[in-house]
């Protein structure tokens, strides 16, 4: 066997081997199109090697020309596949250049097949015997085809494309790949152009493209081995990272989970059964998991998950699970959805943690707040006791006087029954009046946990104002109420919200008394504040707040009153916060204070 045959066959073999490796990569991961393209170009290079072997041993000029014609197809395939491989592999290179090179190479194929014999030669006159490695081969002698300039142009563009892509890859942090592939490819192109020129001049029997291409193939082989080394490293890091994650999860009692949406399988890390919202061991479906969730939270959790997936939100949800010992555990879960190429959800991944203790503390705090609010209401009642007693004694006094008068009228001779009849009617009226006063007072004495309901702002304001009507009257303060009747309903605890308004109005009353002179006027008005809120504003003509203290106005135990306990405003803030609202205070430019309370509008399905 001749050396020529051995060398060229080996070149073809190397190319084919790399092609096979890259093809395998692509078969495993269909996203690795770059590897597939490399595979195509390497196969074309192997084919070209065989064609070169044949062309060097051509017997007649016609045979030489015909083989060279088909070699153009292989060369074009190599160039086009390589260009797009570079673009995908490095993620760099100008698209228009890639298309220009592709276009030129395909264009050259037209005259290649239309004109005789091919795109390189206009005519091959004769074959010149050349001696190489102890073998006599045929080098062509002929006239050059002007279409060959297109090939040269495409080669120049290819050089520019490669250099540009390598430089751009450096900016993308792929400097090494850019260097290795760019340099090797540039060398390949220059050598191919050089040998091609020598062949055209009849010095060489062929352009030796298949041999030259080996430079690029070897560079690619180097890249692959680097990738493999890195893959091993990554695998090690992944193992470490997994171990660290497992430790962290264990230390923090974190549940890690993943729901494969397509297969409907939930995987979770190994934490005790249903603690942290996960379960070790067997793989279960979403329906099985929901079985472990508290029945009251089941629908809400499922809806939240579906909505999260549909809207590409982050999952953030709190729900209860029933443990193996039938105890209730609060779980807080956080997760993210991973989507496939056509935006279909593939998996939902996340962490969860047992927040039962926190929930218990929250409930405890809530209870304390309710108790404190009740104590403060008692304090308010104390403040109002004089006015309320006065209000109550009016009807009681009237009842007593009427009864005494009635008795006297009955003793008259004859008894004045007409008068007694009127008296009895009046007694009934006054009795109802007294009952209404007691009813109002009771609202301040009622204890109770937060009990959310839906109410109209006007009603709330009127009830709070009724509690203070007597006090305001006694102190000669006018209360102006402006609440549009068409405001949306708000959601909240009626008694606590009343308490907030009563506190604010009492503060205003005190501020007006402290101011001593000026208008004795408090305004309470409400308005819509955006889509989701209703604003209630209490304004007075009193002394206002000391500017330096505006910041800690809502701190507990802050008071400006000699007999105050400093709970009013801080409690207002606590209550409003628990309602998801906001409270803020400012001084009016023309004097006096202005406090604004923002409360959330009741959801449409809550309104009565």
């Amino acid at each position, binding site marked *: 066997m001749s050396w020529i045959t051995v060398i060229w066959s080996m070149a073809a073999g190397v190319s084919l081997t790399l092609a096979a490796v890259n093809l395998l990569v692509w078969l495993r991961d269909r996203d690795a199109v770059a590897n597939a393209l490399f595979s195509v170009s390497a196969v074309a290079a192997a084919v070209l090697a065989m064609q070169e072997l044949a062309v060097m041993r051509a017997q007649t000029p016609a045979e030489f020309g015909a083989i060279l014609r088909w070699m153009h197809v292989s060369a074009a395939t190599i160039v086009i596949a390589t260009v797009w491989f570079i673009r995908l592999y490095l993620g760099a290179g100008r698209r228009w250049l890639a298309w220009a090179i592709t276009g030129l190479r395909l264009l050259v194929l037209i005259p290649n097949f239309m004109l005789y014999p091919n795109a390189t030669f206009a005519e091959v006159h004769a074959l010149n015997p050349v001696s190489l490695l102890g073998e006599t081969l045929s080098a062509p002698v002929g006239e050059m085809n002007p279409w060959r300039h297109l090939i040269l142009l495409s080669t120049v563009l290819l050089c520019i494309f490669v250099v540009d892509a390598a430089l751009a890859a450096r900016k993308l942090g792929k400097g090494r790949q850019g260097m290795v592939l760019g340099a090797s490819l540039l060398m390949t192109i220059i050598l191919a152009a050089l040998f091609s020129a020598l062949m055209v001049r009849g010095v060489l029997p062929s352009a030796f493209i298949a041999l030259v291409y080996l430079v690029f193939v070897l560079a690619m082989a180097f890249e692959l081995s680097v990738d493999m080394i890195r893959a091993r490293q990554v695998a090690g890091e992944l193992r470490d990272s997994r171990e660290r994650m497992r430790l962290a999860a264990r230390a923090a009692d974190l549940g890690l989970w993943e729901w494969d949406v397509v297969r409907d399988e939930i995987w979770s890390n190994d934490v005790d059964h249903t603690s942290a919202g996960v379960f070790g061991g067997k793989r279960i479906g979403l329906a099985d998991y929901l079985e472990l969730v508290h029945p009251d939270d089941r629908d809400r959790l499922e809806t939240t998950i579906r909505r999260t997936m549909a809207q590409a939100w982050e999952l953030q949800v709190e729900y209860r699970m029933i443990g193996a010992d039938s105890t209730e555990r609060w779980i807080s879960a956080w997760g993210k959805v991973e989507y496939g190429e056509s935006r279909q959800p593939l998996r939902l991944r996340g962490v969860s943690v047992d927040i039962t203790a926190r929930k218990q503390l929250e409930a405890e705090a809530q209870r304390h707040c309710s108790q404190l609010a009740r104590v403060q209401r008692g304090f308010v009642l104390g403040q109002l006791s004089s006015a309320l007693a006065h209000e109550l004694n009016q009807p009681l006094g009237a009842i007593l006087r009427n009864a005494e008068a009635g008795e*006297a009228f009955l003793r008259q001779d004859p008894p004045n029954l007409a008068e007694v009849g009127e008296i009895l009617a009046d007694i009934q009226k006054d009795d109802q009046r007294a009952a209404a006063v007691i009813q109002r007072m009771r609202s301040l004495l009622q204890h109770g946990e937060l009990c959310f309901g839906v109410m109209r702002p006007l009603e709330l304001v009127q009830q709070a104002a009724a509690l203070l009507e007597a006090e305001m*009257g006694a102190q000669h303060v006018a209360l102006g109420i402006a609440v549009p009747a068409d405001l949306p309903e708000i959601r909240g605890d009626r008694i606590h919200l009343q308490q907030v308004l009563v506190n604010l109005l009492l503060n205003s009353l005190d501020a007006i008394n402290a101011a001593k002179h000026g208008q004795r006027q408090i305004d309470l008005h409400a308005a819509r504040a955006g889509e989701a809120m209703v604003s209630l504003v209490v304004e007075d003509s009193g002394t206002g707040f000391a500017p330096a203290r505006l910041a800690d106005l809502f701190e507990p135990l802050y008071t400006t009153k000699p007999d105050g306990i400093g709970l009013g405003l801080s409690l207002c803030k606590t209550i409003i916060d628990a309602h998801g609202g906001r409270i803020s205070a400012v001084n009016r430019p023309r004097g006096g204070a202005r406090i604004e309370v923002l409360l959330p509008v009741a959801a449409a399905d809550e309104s009565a």
Partner: protein
Amino acid sequence: MVFIVDDDASFLKSIERLLRSAGFVTQCYSSAVDFIAQQAPDRVGCVLADLRMPDMDGIALQAHLARSGNPLPVVFLTGHGDIPTSVEAMRQGAEDFLVKTAPKEAIIAAVERALARGAKERVFRAHRRALQARLNTLTPREEQVLSHVMNGSKNKQIAAALGIDERSVKRHRSHLMRKLEVTSIAELAQLVFEAGAREDDSYRTAK
């Protein structure tokens, strides 16, 4: 006559009934302003007023009456008698201060006391007015002499102070003693005291 002033219509009606059934003659007003607007200077009786009322409260009403020529006695009623308001009312010279739910007997006794005091004060005021009328007949010179006499000055001193002779002083003295229908310095002193003691400023306004 008992004038009842209360802004609470229902209580106004009930207390009116009670007093009427107890034999009093009454007249009702729903506010102090109303009462003052219709006030006749020769009203006789007492006022039964609510302490807490809008616009003009009981204490302001009492102060207004005291300034007028006919200071009727006032009995205060209140829904709830807390300490600060009762102290204030008493300081202002309220005849009585009662809560609206006080026993019937207490209210009736207070009204009777007020009426009696009103009658006594009326007699006293009439007497004083008569004495003041006598004082009003004095000439300016006689008045000057009177004030010096009341200070305990001798005729000689008075003459020196006024720049007139002693005989003229004696003449003025006897004239004024005759006009004031007194025979001794002691009687003169009592008259001046009775005419001006109770309400010094009303003596002065009368002049």
